């Protein structure tokens, strides 16, 4: 599992406060703890409250990468914010850009922009199965968009193994959306067949349980199910021990990790090395 640590995000109060006060301590603490917990990448998102998002992104990148060796996942819907992060990011450890849809009404060339930045940085790119029509409601359309993403990214110089497809998971308690997680599992299975080697498949897992009770349980149950359908990455709270244990067990049950009596420990020892 390529776990992307979600915690350095301006939507969390501690991070928003740290950004506002330019207090590096909490950021570096989160960077280290997520690294120790096995994060393969650390997501960096300035949130919506930052006064100067470009400056905040530069500061977050410099602060986080000084605390650990883990590569970063620069997360913004604004290309200029990503670009600001890339200016100061140590891309020699690898970098992941998060994220671009296939196309967008306000910016039809959005994928080209993100793919070019990822290619030039020698990194990888998360792409959302979304186009000008928004998030599709059917499996077929999600897979169709994923196929277009794979093809288009290859044209732009990104091989499928540098591509992370995010089928977009919506909160399970939104009226009418409860059928979506089941459909997404079927979509994942088909996306994994699009190329060989297949693109990575990732998801912003915490979104699934947004506003729901028993969030950790919902998240880890779905992640274990997604692993069994071919999902190999997720943007998650790696500090949630029960979640990491569930992934370790799921990968072992799916014969992706060789069983040993110490399989939980073995998984934690290796996590983070798999990118």
């Amino acid at each position, binding site marked *: 599992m390529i776990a992307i640590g979600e915690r350095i995000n301006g939507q969390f109060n501690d991070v928003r406060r740290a950004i506002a006060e330019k207090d590096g301590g909490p950021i570096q603490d989160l960077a280290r703890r997520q690294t120790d917990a096995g994060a393969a990448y650390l997501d960096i998102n300035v949130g919506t409250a930052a006064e100067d998002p470009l400056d905040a992104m530069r500061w977050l990148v410099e602060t986080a990468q000084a605390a650990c060796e883990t590569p970063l996942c620069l997360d913004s819907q604004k290309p200029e914010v990503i670009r600001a992060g890339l200016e100061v990011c140590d891309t020699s450890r690898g970098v992941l850009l998060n994220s671009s849809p296939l196309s967008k009404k306000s910016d039809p060339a959005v994928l080209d922009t993100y793919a070019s930045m990822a290619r030039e940085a020698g990194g990888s790119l998360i792409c959302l199965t979304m186009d000008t029509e928004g998030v599709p409601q059917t499996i077929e359309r999600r897979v169709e968009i994923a196929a277009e993403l794979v093809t288009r990214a290859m*044209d732009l110089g990104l*091989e499928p193994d540098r591509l992370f497809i995010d089928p977009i998971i919506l909160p399970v308690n939104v009226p009418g959306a409860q059928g979506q997680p089941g459909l997404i599992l079927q979509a994942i299975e088909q996306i994994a067949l699009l*190329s060989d080697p297949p693109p990575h498949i990732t998801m912003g897992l915490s979104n699934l349980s947004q506003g729901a009770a028993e969030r950790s349980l919902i998240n880890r149950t779905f992640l274990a199910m997604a692993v069994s359908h071919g999902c190999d990455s997720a943007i998650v709270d790696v500090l949630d021990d029960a979640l990491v244990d569930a992934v370790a067990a799921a990968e072992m049950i799916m014969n992706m990790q*060789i069983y*040993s*009596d*110490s399989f939980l420990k*073995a998984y934690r*020892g*290796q996590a983070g090395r798999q990118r």
Partner: protein
Amino acid sequence: MDLPPVKQAFSSTVNEVTLGGANGRKAVTIGGAKTVPYGGDLEATGRRPRIAVDVLDAAPADWPGALAEAYKDVLDDPAAWAAMAVGDLGADLVCLKFDGIDPDGGNRDAAHAVAVTRRVLAAVNVPLILWGSGHNEKDNAVMPKVSEAAKGENVLLGTVTEDNYKGLTAIAMADGHCLIAEAPLDINIAKQVNILVSDMGFPLERIVMFQTTGALGYGLEYAYSIQERERLAALGGDTLMAMPVICDCGSEAWRAKEAKAPAADFPQWGDEARRGPLWEAVTAVNLLQSGADIVRLRHPAAVGQVKAYIDTLWGKEA
């Protein structure tokens, strides 16, 4: 759109382990494979596999005639035996096997084992493998002293198992040796032994894995598939399975009735002096194809055949 290049991509590499290399002794490095055996670029194949010839600490009482005959002049003299293995047969390594300390096989003491170790170390300049009897209690009493006698020589010391690993792991660490982690043809236990040993602080990079080997006709296919799965796990990024591998082909092959039964009893099987070594060589060549990095061999003719096979694939060594 151009077709993308088709490539079998493995994300990881088998660890390289160097044996010997101290006190004027030759260094032998094994491992380093980046792909399945003979499955891709030669550069990705890693280090040349190596042959270890068995030398016993005391003359064996139960060796089949064809095997005992080949070493009849040196069976009582491990130093001369080791010199013959290296000088005449071209062994890359000498595996000094302490069957003579086993309570059921001579029950010799630590002083004997230490003296033999010193004499063999002095007799050859290739790295040594020092391998206990398999009797836990006796090995725990004797092998630490053997390890100490070879301190600083960077030998390959074995074996540790799931139930008996603490003593030998600690002494191998103290004396600067590499370690053989053994499992009973069980990939899950192999991983567990590696975890247990590394939990004691022993570096994973100094471990060589050993699955009790099945010979031709006696589980070779099963041994092969386990070795293959271990190698795929190593190449796939499982750092707890990324060790190079040693196989015991000699003693296992010669346990087979088909290898050792005299032609007088089974005339249709042919001459056992030819049949036995072939049985051993076929076992070894198969396991080399599964990714073995060291094969332990016994009969000189089997050593010659396996050497010729390795030369064919890898080219002769200068």
